[in-house]
């Protein structure tokens, strides 16, 4: 048993080492984006780079998750939500300098992967039929708790009075991109996804989809906010996102431009 | 042998291991600690080495205080110069024999250590085996490495914990002889822990008998084996002939004390201080029991003649152990030895009547 003095000295040395790992220089701003932008945003960022813009880092996830993280002090410079609510709440709680701007309006679609017995149509009649025939074992949507696209999916299903029927069959994705992944993997017979994802090249050949009437749910006005206006790169990217070029790109990916009232 | 006290030890505690030991060791002396297992011998050794702290302890070596619980002094083992040979050698398995010895040479400058280590190994007759790892050494060789390592520190006291118990008889004899030769050149006080009385008697200058951590008697082997101070000590050193008698009187002019025993009146060594009429335990070592030849009639003037019948004969090679039932009621049992040759010549067998003499100088009273 070593004498007390030696032990104490060793302990001090150890704690000194523990406090000393080098700090990582984090100068490249981080953009937190709703996963619906999984395919659109990298393209926009690429254009930004080629136009001479500096490097940015993109992180995708559910809007609700990012909201929580920002409250906990996550170092994001820019937040692109899939709806308005989270951004407005951040502004309310003074975690965002302003309520930001609407950059797009989203749509949900009914999606059926290749080989599924589900017939897709805008009225969801095919879904109802398949449900009553017992052909739907699993149905994927994003988690309504913290993914705006999931919440809208729930609203639409409730409107069409299919929610209770479908509820036991639901597979909840952590965000709408994961829901898409479930829907495509073949283990679900269908799902409600973002149009921006269903229309993407990666998914287009893996199934069929039909847009769901937007009046069946609250609008998916997607808001973004510059959390660190002092960061020059972030400011430039924010401006780039509002350019007509970007709006064009978003539209091609299935995200409508903000309406006049936005 | 100088009579300078080199080591003083006093250890007292109630538990967890009871101790009430007090002894000293002189320069050049080999003191054997004997006692049954559990008598605390190893604990005492560890306390001297600094590996154990009894509640009340005083250990002084060549005047230097190693432990003094009264003053809160306890030198760690590193600061004492004690050489300890463990019962299972405790050699470092990842080092060679030379490496093992070198670990104890920290007091020498680094360049000198290999040479010194080799010299020590040579002294214990292990030259040529310096590079061997412990797993490639025999028991006797391991023991010698352990000894060399203990001696490497130029210890002021050498502590040996049952060093020969794990080897065969032949190796043991050889190691014992080497120890004796080594000590002739190194007058370091040595404490040897052993449960083997014979070994203690052969090697030790003095024996210290222990029981449950208590030192009962310390003295030269002859004293312990012939004049134990109590029946307990007599039993611990395996003296068989322990009896009880009554002091009948004293004859100072003849140098005798008279002892009444089972109808016999024996002449024992004079012990004037014992009151007449008191009951007393007494012992006679087997060597002081002399058998009368059966073919010659006994002469009455023989010392303390005693008659009886042979109960048991056990021959161990050249020596035969005899157990004899002495006439009297109840019949006490007497043990002695004769040469097997004499046993044959006298046609000894169980049931045969014999006569022995109990030599007065061997009858030792233990009041």
């Amino acid at each position, binding site marked *: *048993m*070593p*004498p007390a003095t*030696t*032990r104490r000295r*060793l302990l001090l040395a*150890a704690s000194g*080492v*523990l406090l000393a*790992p080098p*700090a*990582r220089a*984090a100068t490249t701003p*981080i953009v937190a984006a709703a996963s619906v932008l*999984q*395919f659109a945003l990298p393209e926009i960022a690429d254009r930004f780079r080629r136009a001479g813009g500096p490097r940015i*880092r*993109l*992180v*995708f*996830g559910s809007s609700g998750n990012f909201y929580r*993280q920002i409250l*906990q*002090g*996550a*170092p994001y410079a820019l937040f692109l939500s899939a709806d308005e609510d989270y951004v407005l709440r951040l502004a309310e709680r003074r975690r965002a300098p302003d309520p930001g701007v609407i950059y797009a309006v989203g749509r949900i679609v009914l999606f059926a992967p290749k080989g599924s017995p589900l017939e897709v149509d805008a009225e969801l009649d095919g879904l109802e039929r398949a449900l009553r025939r017992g052909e739907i074992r699993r149905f994927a949507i994003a988690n309504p708790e913290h993914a705006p696209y999931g919440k809208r999916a729930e609203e639409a299903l409730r409107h069409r009075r299919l929610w209770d029927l479908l509820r036991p069959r639901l597979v909840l994705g952590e*965000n709408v*991109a*994961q829901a*898409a*992944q479930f829907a*495509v993997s073949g283990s679900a017979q269908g799902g409600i996804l973002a149009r921006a994802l269903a229309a993407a090249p*990666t*998914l287009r050949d893996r199934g069929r989809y039909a847009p769901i009437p937007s009046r069946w749910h609250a609008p998916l006005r997607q808001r973004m906010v510059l959390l660190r206006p002092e960061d020059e790169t972030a400011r430039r990217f924010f401006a780039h996102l509002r350019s007509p070029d970007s709006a064009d790109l978003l539209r091609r990916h299935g995200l409508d431009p903000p309406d006049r009232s936005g | 042998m100088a009579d300078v006290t080199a080591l003083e030890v006093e250890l007292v505690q109630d538990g967890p291991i009871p101790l009430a030991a007090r002894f000293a060791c002189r320069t050049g002396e080999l003191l054997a600690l004997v006692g049954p297992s559990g008598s605390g011998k190893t604990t005492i050794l*560890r306390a001297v*080495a*600094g*590996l154990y702290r009894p509640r009340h302890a005083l250990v002084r070596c060549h005047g230097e205080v190693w432990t003094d619980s009264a003053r809160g002094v306890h030198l760690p*083992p*590193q600061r*004492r110069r004690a*050489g*300890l040979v*463990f019962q*299972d050698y*405790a050699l*470092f*398995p*990842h080092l060679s024999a030379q490496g093992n010895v070198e*670990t*104890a040479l*920290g*007091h020498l400058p680094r360049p000198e250590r290999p040479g010194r280590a080799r010299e020590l190994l040579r002294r214990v007759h292990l030259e040529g085996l310096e590079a061997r*790892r*412990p*797993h490639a050494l025999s028991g006797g060789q391991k023991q010698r490495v352990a000894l060399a*390592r*203990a001696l*490497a*520190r130029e210890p002021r006291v050498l502590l040996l914990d049952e060093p020969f118990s794990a080897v065969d008889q032949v190796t043991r004899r050889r190691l014992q002889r080497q120890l004796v030769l080594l000590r002739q050149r190194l007058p370091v006080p040595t404490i040897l822990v052993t449960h083997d009385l014979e070994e203690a008697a052969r090697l030790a200058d003095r024996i210290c008998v222990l029981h449950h951590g208590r030192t009962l008697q310390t003295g030269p082997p002859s004293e312990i084996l012939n004049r134990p101070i109590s029946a307990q000590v007599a039993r611990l050193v395996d003296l068989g002939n322990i009896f009880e008698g009554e002091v009948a009187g004293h004859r100072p002019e003849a140098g005798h004390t008279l002892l009444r025993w089972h109808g016999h009146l024996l002449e024992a060594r004079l012990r004037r201080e014992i009151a007449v009429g008191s009951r007393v335990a007494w012992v006679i070592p087997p060597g002081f029991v002399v058998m009368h030849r059966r073919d010659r009639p006994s002469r009455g003037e023989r010392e303390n003649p005693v008659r009886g019948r042979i109960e048991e004969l056990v021959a161990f090679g050249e020596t035969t152990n005899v157990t004899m039932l002495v006439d009297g009621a109840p019949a006490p049992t007497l043990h002695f030895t004769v040469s097997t040759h004499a046993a044959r010549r006298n046609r000894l067998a169980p049931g045969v009547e014999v006569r022995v003499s109990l030599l007065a100088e061997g009858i030792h009273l233990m009041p």
Partner: protein
Amino acid sequence: MDWEALRLSLELALWTCLLLLPAGTLLARALRSLRPGPRRLIGALVALPLVLPPTVLGYYLLVLMGRASPLGGLYEKLTGGSLVFSFEGLVAASLVFNLPFAVQPLERAFAAIPRNLREAAAVSGLSPVAIFFRIELPLAWPGVLAAFALVFAHTLGEFGVVLMVGGAIPGETRTIAIAIYDRVQALDEAAAGIMSASLLAISFATIALVYLFEPGRRRDG
């Protein structure tokens, strides 16, 4: 193949090993010198990350290290950054969830050294530090290697806690395990497949190292 994520994972694993192995060794030795009662209690605490779901660990780590906590606040005051969502925070979290993987093999290795070897070393004049480096460590090194390999592999594979505490920030906290998850979500199966195979190969090689050495008897036993 997300090289940045792989590099992050390897760095995290190496830093964890570098910090945890000495700390774990000290803890393992300290545990051994305790009485059975306290030793078992602390042993159970150390073993907690083995049985707790990563989400529970992640939750409590967030509470302990978040901006609002004393620890997080102190860190921010000292360095200006936050512990959560940073690499340093991941290292801190990694030290916690890897504790049993380091301490248990180390403890076993040191416990296997007979007590009388340390005593013999002390009697031979070696200081406690010398005893540790010259006697205990050389005899315990298979255990140290096992601890290293386990911590390394386990850190490479850790997901839940890293996600909760780190936030999957590329170049900062998005380790390869998270990058794989990310690619699956993006339906980029090719990338996910390559990265998974790489992680499998590295983890297997690391664990094979443990099995190569742990049950083997040293030849000088």
